[in-house]
């Protein structure tokens, strides 16, 4: 149940900007394929996944403390990195004098958000199993 809720409320809502961009790409003429994968949207998706991980783990008490601390710590590190990427992304929009390759930013954001999706799935999968185990017991 937890996993399904995570998928509907977090993943789909997080991917909404990308879906809207894809829809616009299909409907409006003259938009390049680069328009679909926007680095800021990808970074926002990663931020949403990690903040939901932290929120879900914070109030759980019947799980291993070491694992919980590792997950929260990792999510915090990812949040810091995503925030930095977001700042760089905004900066590259404002100032043209800063030497940042937009494609590098885009592919790094794509890689990190994909990894974040896998991490988030692993965390929710475990929480789901723990919940099922508590029902059986």
């Amino acid at each position, binding site marked *: 149940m937890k996993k399904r809720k995570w998928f509907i409320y977090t993943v789909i809502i997080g991917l909404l900007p990308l879906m809207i961009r894809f829809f616009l790409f299909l409907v409006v003429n003259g938009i390049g394929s680069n328009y679909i994968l926007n680095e800021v949207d990808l970074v926002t998706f990663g931020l949403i996944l990690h903040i939901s991980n932290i929120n879900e783990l914070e109030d759980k008490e019947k799980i291993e403390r070491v*694992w919980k601390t*590792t*997950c929260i710590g*990792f999510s915090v*590190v*990812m949040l810091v*990195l995503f925030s930095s*990427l977001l700042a*760089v992304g905004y900066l590259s929009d404002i100032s043209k004098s*800063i*030497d*940042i*390759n937009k494609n*590098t*930013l885009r592919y*790094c954001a794509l*890689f*990190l958000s994909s*990894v*974040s999706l*896998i*991490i988030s*799935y*692993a*965390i929710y*999968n*475990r929480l789901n*199993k723990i919940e*099922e*185990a508590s029902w*059986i017991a």
Partner: protein
Amino acid sequence: MDSIIIISSIIVGTSGLVFAIKTLIDTRKKYYKQFLKERENRRNINE
């Protein structure tokens, strides 16, 4: 600037991937007994 972004992304991304795979494997190992128990219960109900 680009190299800093690439290197930090690779380091954090790879370690994240390793952590996720480790968590998935641990979960599978830990809750495999539970899965077997559920399967046995289902078999008993069907019989």
